[in-house]
């Protein structure tokens, strides 16, 4: 009894919150001692405490619970019965709800959870119960610091000791932990929190497990803590130091590879932070993370990591206090600089993870960095490493002079690795020299060790690199050898001479070496190409740094030699390679380009002059001209070169054309003529107006004096095409002249334009297409009357139109009487009449239509009204033979109404729409100064399309309808999708008819493909959907016919892709077509082309899934029905086609899910 009273007193004094702390501790110890020695059983204590544990006074209850909890903490080594533990767990976990007594509950739970198994521990289910209750009720962040710490300890303990059971809590656990940690600021709590995250990561290591989906959330909470930085300086008495915390965070970061996508970018970003500690931390973390995540995951960041480490290294290794102690390759000593050390150890980690080849690379890079950072480090590397490497390569300082001929290398294979390191070293040294542009430093360099050594060994190095290439020239050369040899030579040649003068002889030797490769080793493609690249690099370097002496050598050794190559026929180097070398070398600088152009010009003219004697020279000229117009001219244009050469070149070609006096033979053959015309157009197009005037004057004088065209008579006499039999030579010259006209600026004055237009009209009727293009170009560029008041001498647009459309063309009456069926004005008609076939000469009509289409294009581009009339003429050609639908031309056609047009003429008229709509490379584009009105295609589309649609519906003859479809296809393929989509509803049916029409002729396959692309565009665009849904049936039917189109693989592939797109449509629309599609596609599975088969498999899959999805729906409703109407089972089964074989059902049961 005495004990009991004493106990009561103890309890009283503990519960009384006014007593001192030491007193409380003493009473607590006393009670614990009693329980420990079994003087007081735990049950008795609980009974005694009963009132305190259940009282409604919050303070006393909290103290009571805390007392019990503290006692249990103190008797952790005393064995306890499992039933007692269970009831205690129940008690404490329930108390977690009550925030006033929460500390006691936490202490109690913690004490219980920490018990070891020998003295009786909490069972798994109890632990789960605690965890659940904790996650449900605890608001960790609303508690005080000490309580929070308890909470984290409890969580930590749970994860540590009961990992297997808490795993089952899944999402709740992760959520709870996130919530608890979020915004925690106390270092002690954070230590625990980081540890909790680490344990959590170990709980769910699976890459597709639960944590994977929360990795981002968890990491978002951790991210703000990096880098650990204490805002208030620690006074020294805080138990947690910054480093400990940082380490803890690091292990949390590196705990699971799931964090990799978030961690690495963060670290890389922080590496460039200005905070010193952040840099160090990032490097440390990177190292640890890369070792934990594994090489595979880090591989993709290698480049980014490398570049930031490189930056760090070069920044921090270059600090002035830095003292450099150098060592052999395998153990470079770095200064006592924390960042440097960390960066290097990270590097080491990365290197160890990589292969041997990469190791070499890494060392090379380090050497590069060291060499390029400061002069002193560069000197040190050279002093220690370079001479060693030279020794290893076989030349030492002592015999440096004796082996200057380089013969020693041919017998032995030069050590690859050393040469590689040499290159890196040299590259670094070069960077250093280039980087220091202060003139004060220039003097210093020459006397630096690195430069002295480089001087001493430069000959040897040259020989070494040369011999690498020479050795490999005998066998099939290996890529690395080529790389080393060429790169080495290039680096040697590109040292800046005012800072580091390399001997002139060495530079020239290098150039000779590379040139010899260019001239001889053209069969080894890789070697040849890399040599050429190096040559160009050296060339542009020389230009860039204004090295006059080197530039001289370069010009004499390289540029002039290459120009010389052009005229030498005996060299085996293929001509295409010569041209490639020529253009590449030319692009190294403006001066070189001029030399090259001069050489090219001479070569072209020389070849042109002997075209008739030598067949090869024609090919040569074509190649040179191609090179000139595709490569050199654009380069000059871009790099602001002068146009002098272009002008001179054009004039030279013209005088060459004038000199060719052989009237019977063509001026030049067709391919060459095209090349000359292209070069001429581009040359003229790139000149300014004055130069263009000069060229066109010159050209005009040659046209008028050196041809059979009697320009003076053309205007006065009526136009009679029959009179001029144009010789082939004249045709060539007028084409060339047309190409000048095509390319000129609108402001350029074209001499005698009216005469020229007459001439052009006549030649146009002879079928010379460039002339038609020139006419279109003239019409496109002329100013119209309204704004040309000041320059009355010039021809205006209206006058020009008048010339074209109203000039009477006469035919010699003998000709006409036979053909023209008695029209009153039979022998005089205008161009448009010829187009309509009044002349009754098919060839003439086709030529006229073709010419008119180019004229129309010129007008269309500037948005002139007259295009409407021209379009009407084309349409008239298309529909004639049926009743005319166009009132305007009705009366003029009265006499030909019954006559049916020739199909060829109709085809030509349909193709005229292609000329109108497509973007042309040869004329009427921006390069040739055409006037282009914005959105002209859309305008044309919206004005013409309704007419064509109307005509198609009205046309009865299948022939004219098919040509209308053709015109339709041309217009559709070249109009922008936006315009088409707005009309989609009307267009789709016609488009489908058009597609099936185009499948009939193999020659239309490209047109078919173009049109199919339009359809697929409509299918995939959102705005087109409505029209597509309406016409789904016919679209699918049409596409099914196209999936086995034999002539073009792209058509089949696109058709199948369209079908895939169609499967996205609402189910009810496409379901009926399902079987048909699947059947059609199944034949495509056996297609001859792989791409088609691949698309077919994809298409089949999407349609299958639809198929089953539908059946599923049906079945679902049927099952619903079955529940109520079992009687109809049999009937309904029959309905969905399932046969009631007993066997089938048995097997189906076998397939049931486990």
């Amino acid at each position, binding site marked *: 009894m005495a004990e009991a009273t004493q106990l009561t007193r103890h309890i009283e004094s503990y519960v009384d919150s006014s007593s001192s702390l030491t007193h409380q501790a003493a009473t607590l110890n006393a009670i614990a001692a009693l329980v420990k020695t079994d003087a007081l059983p735990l049950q008795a204590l609980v009974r005694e405490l009963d009132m305190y544990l259940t009282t409604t006074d919050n303070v006393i209850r909290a103290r009571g619970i805390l007392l019990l909890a503290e006692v249990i903490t103190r008797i952790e080594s005393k064995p306890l019965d499992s039933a007692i533990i269970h009831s205690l767990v129940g008690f404490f976990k329930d108390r977690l709800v009550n925030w006033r007594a929460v500390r006691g509950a936490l202490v109690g739970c913690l004490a219980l959870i920490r018990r070891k198994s020998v003295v009786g521990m909490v069972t798994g289910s109890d632990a789960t119960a605690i965890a659940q209750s904790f996650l449900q009720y605890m608001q960790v962040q609303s508690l005080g610091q000490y309580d929070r710490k308890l909470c984290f300890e409890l969580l930590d303990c749970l994860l540590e000791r009961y990992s297997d059971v808490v795993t089952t809590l899944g999402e709740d656990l992760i959520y709870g932990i996130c919530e608890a940690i979020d915004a925690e600021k106390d270092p002690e709590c954070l230590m625990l929190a980081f540890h909790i995250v680490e344990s959590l990561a170990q709980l769910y290591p699976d890459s597709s497990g639960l944590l994977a989906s929360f990795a981002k959330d968890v990491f978002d909470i951790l991210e703000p803590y990096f880098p650990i930085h204490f805002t208030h300086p620690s006074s020294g008495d805080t138990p947690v130091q910054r480093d400990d915390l940082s380490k803890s965070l690091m292990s949390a970061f590196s705990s699971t590879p799931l964090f990799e996508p978030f961690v690495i970018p963060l670290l890389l970003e922080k590496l460039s932070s200005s905070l010193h500690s952040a840099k160090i931390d990032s490097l440390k973390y990177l190292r640890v993370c890369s070792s934990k995540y594994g090489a595979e995951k880090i591989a993709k960041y290698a480049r980014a990591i490398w570049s930031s480490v490189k930056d760090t290294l070069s920044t921090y290794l270059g600090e002035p206090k830095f003292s450099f102690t150098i060592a052999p390759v395998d153990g470079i000593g770095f200064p006592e600089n924390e960042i440097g050390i960390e960066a290097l150890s990270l590097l080491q980690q990365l290197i160890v993870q990589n292969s041997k080849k990469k190791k070499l690379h890494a060392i090379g890079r380090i050497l590069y960095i060291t060499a390029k950072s400061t002069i002193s480090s560069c000197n040190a590397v050279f002093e220690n490493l370079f001479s060693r490497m030279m020794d290893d390569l076989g030349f030492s300082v002592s015999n440096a002079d004796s082996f200057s001929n380089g013969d020693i290398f041919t017998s032995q294979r030069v050590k690859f690795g050393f040469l590689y390191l040499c290159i890196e070293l040299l590259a670094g040294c070069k960077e250093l020299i280039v980087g220091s542009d202060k003139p004060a430093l220039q003097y210093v360099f020459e006397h630096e060790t690195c430069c002295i050594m480089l001087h001493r060994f430069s000959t040897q190095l040259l020989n070494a690199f040369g011999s690498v290439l020479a050795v490999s020239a005998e066998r099939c050369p290996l890529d690395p050898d080529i790389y080393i040899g060429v790169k080495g030579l290039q680096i040697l040649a590109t040292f800046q001479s005012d800072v580091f003068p390399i001997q002139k002889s060495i530079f020239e030797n290098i150039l000779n070496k590379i040139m010899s490769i260019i001239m001889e080793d053209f069969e080894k493609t890789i070697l040849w190409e890399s040599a050429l690249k190096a040559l160009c690099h050296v060339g542009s370097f020389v230009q860039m740094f204004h090295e006059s002496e080197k530039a001289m050598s370069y010009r004499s050794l390289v540029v002039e030699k290459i120009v010389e190559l052009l005229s030498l026929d005996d060299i085996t180097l293929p001509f295409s390679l010569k041209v490639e070398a020529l253009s590449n070398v030319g692009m190294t600088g403006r001066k070189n380009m001029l030399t090259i152009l001069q050489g090219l010009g001479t070569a072209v003219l020389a070849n042109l002059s002997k075209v008739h004697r030598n067949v090869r020279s024609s090919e040569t000229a074509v190649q040179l001209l191609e090179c000139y117009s595709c490569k050199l001219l654009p380069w000059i244009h871009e790099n602001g070169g002068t146009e002098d050469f272009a002008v001179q070149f054009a004039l030279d070609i013209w005088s060459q054309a004038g000199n060719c006096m052989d009237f019977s033979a063509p001026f030049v053959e067709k391919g060459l003529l095209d090349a000359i015309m292209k070069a001429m157009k581009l040359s003229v197009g790139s000149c300014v107006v004055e130069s263009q005037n000069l060229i066109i004057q010159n050209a005009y004088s040659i046209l008028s004096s050196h041809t059979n065209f009697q320009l003076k008579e053309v205007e006065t006499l009526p136009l009679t095409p029959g009179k001029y039999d144009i010789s082939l030579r004249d045709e060539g010259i007028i084409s060339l002249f047309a190409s000048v006209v095509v390319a000129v600026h609108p402001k350029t004055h074209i001499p005698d334009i009216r005469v020229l237009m007459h001439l052009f009209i006549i030649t146009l009727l002879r079928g010379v297409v460039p002339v038609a293009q020139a006419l279109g170009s003239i019409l496109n560029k002329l100013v119209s009357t309204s704004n040309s008041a000041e320059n009355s001498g010039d021809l205006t647009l209206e006058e020009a139109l008048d010339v074209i459309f109203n000039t009477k063309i006469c035919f010699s009456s003998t000709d006409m009487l036979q053909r023209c069926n008695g029209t009153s004005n039979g022998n005089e008609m205008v161009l448009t009449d010829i187009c309509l076939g009044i002349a009754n000469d098919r060839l003439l009509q086709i030529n006229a239509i073709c010419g008119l289409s180019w004229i129309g294009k010129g007008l269309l581009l500037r948005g002139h009204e007259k295009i409407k009339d021209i379009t009407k003429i084309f349409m008239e050609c298309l529909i004639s033979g049926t009743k005319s639908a166009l009132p305007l031309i009705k009366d003029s056609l009265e006499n030909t109404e019954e006559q049916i047009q020739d199909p060829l003429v109709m085809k030509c008229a349909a193709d005229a729409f292609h000329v109108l709509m497509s973007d042309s490379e040869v004329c009427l584009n921006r390069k040739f100064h055409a006037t282009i009105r914005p959105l002209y295609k859309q305008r044309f589309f919206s004005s013409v399309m309704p007419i064509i649609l109307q005509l198609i519906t009205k046309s009865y003859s299948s022939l004219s309808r098919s040509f209308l479809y053709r015109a339709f296809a041309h217009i559709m393929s070249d109009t922008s999708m936006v315009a088409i989509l707005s009309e989609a509803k009307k267009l789709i049916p016609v488009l489908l008819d058009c597609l099936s029409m185009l499948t009939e002729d193999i020659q239309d396959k490209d047109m078919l493909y173009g049109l199919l692309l339009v359809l697929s565009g409509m299918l995939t665009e959102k705005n087109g959907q409505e029209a597509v849904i309406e016409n789904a049936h016919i679209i699918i039917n049409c596409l099914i016919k196209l999936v086995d189109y034999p002539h073009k*693989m792209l058509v089949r592939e696109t058709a199948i892709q369209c079908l895939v797109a169609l499967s996205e449509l609402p189910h009810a629309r496409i379901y009926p077509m399902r079987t048909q599609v699947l059947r059609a596609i199944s*034949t495509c599975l056996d297609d001859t082309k792989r791409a088609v088969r691949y698309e077919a498999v994809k298409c089949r899959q999407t349609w299958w899934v639809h198929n089953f999805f539908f059946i599923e729906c049906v079945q679902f409703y049927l099952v619903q029905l079955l529940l109520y109407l079992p009687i109809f089972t049999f009937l309904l089964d029959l309905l969905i086609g*399932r046969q009631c074989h007993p066997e*089938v059902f048995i097997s189906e049961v*076998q*397939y049931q899910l*486990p």
Partner: protein
Amino acid sequence: MVSGLINANPVIYEKKERRARTAPSAPHDEKVDNCNTNIFLTFSNHIRDIKDPEHPYSLEELKVITEEAVEVDDQRNYVRVTFTPTVEHCSMATIIGLCLRVKLMRSLPLRYKVDIRVAPGSHATEAAVNKQLNDKERVAAALENPNLLDMVDECLAPSYD
């Protein structure tokens, strides 16, 4: 439902490197692609990516099927696929077989006869499984079971990406 997985800890193998699909050299060229590559393509592009019914790995990663296990006779229009279940008593063998069959059914031309079997000695009820997999009616019936079909479609889904 069985509570645990049949093979809780399967061994994961590395994926074979994919042979890059050679870019169509000239799309206008109507040359016939080698037909045997058809089947190679089937394997490399389709079968290997089928997902295992119980694990988030592809059949290739689990070495259930390998490239060598696909035999093709293009002249006789015959394909035989031999697969190896991960454990002997694997009840998923039928499902895997069904996936293979459905996949091939959907990606091969109709002319092929497809034979699917379990590798000899790799399954406890080898004969039964083989019989079930090559019985047209049973396969058809199985595909009408919506649950099964869902499962098959799920396994096939990744191979169409």
